[in-house]
């Protein structure tokens, strides 16, 4: 994957514009998903994804191939997402965001889920409820913990790569992840008992 990304970058730098759009089509969904889970607002996440690719486009000339391209683009995206959270904090907009309300319409429809005969309607509704709960709980995490948690639990990145994306040590990544999960566990504990 790394080679093909670097190859696309080299092709773009050699003047092949379409190589850039190949990178776009490869990373647009993961980056949109990542930013949405961080900031909890789909429309803003799409804007920030666009901004991420603009920055990539402008600075591809300075990209060093000894880093994985995916690490680099996630780093840009996480910086933009964290900046957005800081901006909201300064403006006092934290309370205004409602993750569930801003959830994109890309989820599996309940009727599709009900088509799975092994699951009851109650289970499907419970699942949807829990998704809403976890998304809301993620939004309450401090940004540093939230980013690590999303990269690990949602994007399924290993600790080392998370450290490279966020520019922090392995120990810091583990400690933040542990703290994030503990906080989530506390927040979701009342619902755990109902299962």
């Amino acid at each position, binding site marked *: 994957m790394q080679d093909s990304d670097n190859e696309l970058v080299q092709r773009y730098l050699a003047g092949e514009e379409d190589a850039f759009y190949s990178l776009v089509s490869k990373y647009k969904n993961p980056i949109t998903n990542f930013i949405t889970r961080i900031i909890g607002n789909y429309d803003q996440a799409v804007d920030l994804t666009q901004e991420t690719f*603009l920055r990539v486009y402008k600075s591809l000339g300075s990209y060093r191939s000894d880093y994985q391209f995916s690490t680099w683009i996630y780093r840009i995206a996480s910086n933009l997402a964290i900046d957005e959270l800081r901006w909201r904090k300064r403006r006092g907009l934290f309370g205004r965001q409602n993750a569930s309300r801003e959830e994109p319409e890309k989820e599996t429809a309940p009727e599709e889920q009900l088509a799975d005969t092994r699951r009851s309607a109650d289970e499907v509704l419970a699942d949807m409820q829990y998704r809403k709960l976890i998304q809301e709980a993620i939004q309450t995490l401090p940004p540093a913990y939230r980013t690590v948690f999303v990269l690990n639990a949602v994007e399924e990145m290993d600790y080392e790569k998370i450290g490279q994306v966020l520019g922090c040590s392995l120990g810091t990544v583990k400690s933040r992840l542990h703290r994030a999960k503990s906080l989530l566990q506390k927040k979701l504990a009342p619902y755990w008992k109902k299962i």
Partner: protein
Amino acid sequence: MNCRIFRENILEYQDAKPEDPLVREMKQHLEVCPDCSGFLLQWQWVSRLAKGLPRVEAPGDFEIRLRKRLREEQAEVRSGWFSFIPVTWRYAMVGAMSLCICFSALYLYQPGGGGGSIDRTASQAKAIPVEPGQPQGERPDSAVEDPGAYPAALPVSTRTAGYGGPRNPGEWPPDIEVHGEGGEYVEYLLKGTGQDEIVVRMPKTIRVRPPGENDPSYFRYISH
């Protein structure tokens, strides 16, 4: 192994290999501690919930919008001021403009730039020892060779020398007798309304006697 150590290392428990001694100890602890077993289940449940979140996708027209925005940004860069001039020329122009501004500033602030005003300060006056036999209060006629050596502005009182208010700078009031008191001379560069400059040499302390009048305003000029 106790509950605290178990919970602190719960990340390792999930990631480490089963043969790891720590994992073996943790497993033994789980067998005897229902609290930590429940804690582990809850921990795994949170991870499962997060993993189960649906993947969000970019909108279908994402690339079209991105292409449009990139075109707009490129057009903005191209349509900037002086964009038709090559970059190296732009740097040269900026350099030339900076030099022009510097020289203009220097010209405006150079001594005597105000025209017609006496712009030397007495505090910067050049003190010259009195030479024996030299007439005191002499008014030299020659222009000054090095204007920079003289003070920038005279005190206000010296601007209005003579009867009835200001006279031409450099013009010594003809009807005032000036007597040196000894000590040092002070040279002032007086600038005329035109480009002419003149040096007035006077003692640091003078006595002014207005003929026939007793105008106290003269005494403003006694000392500098």
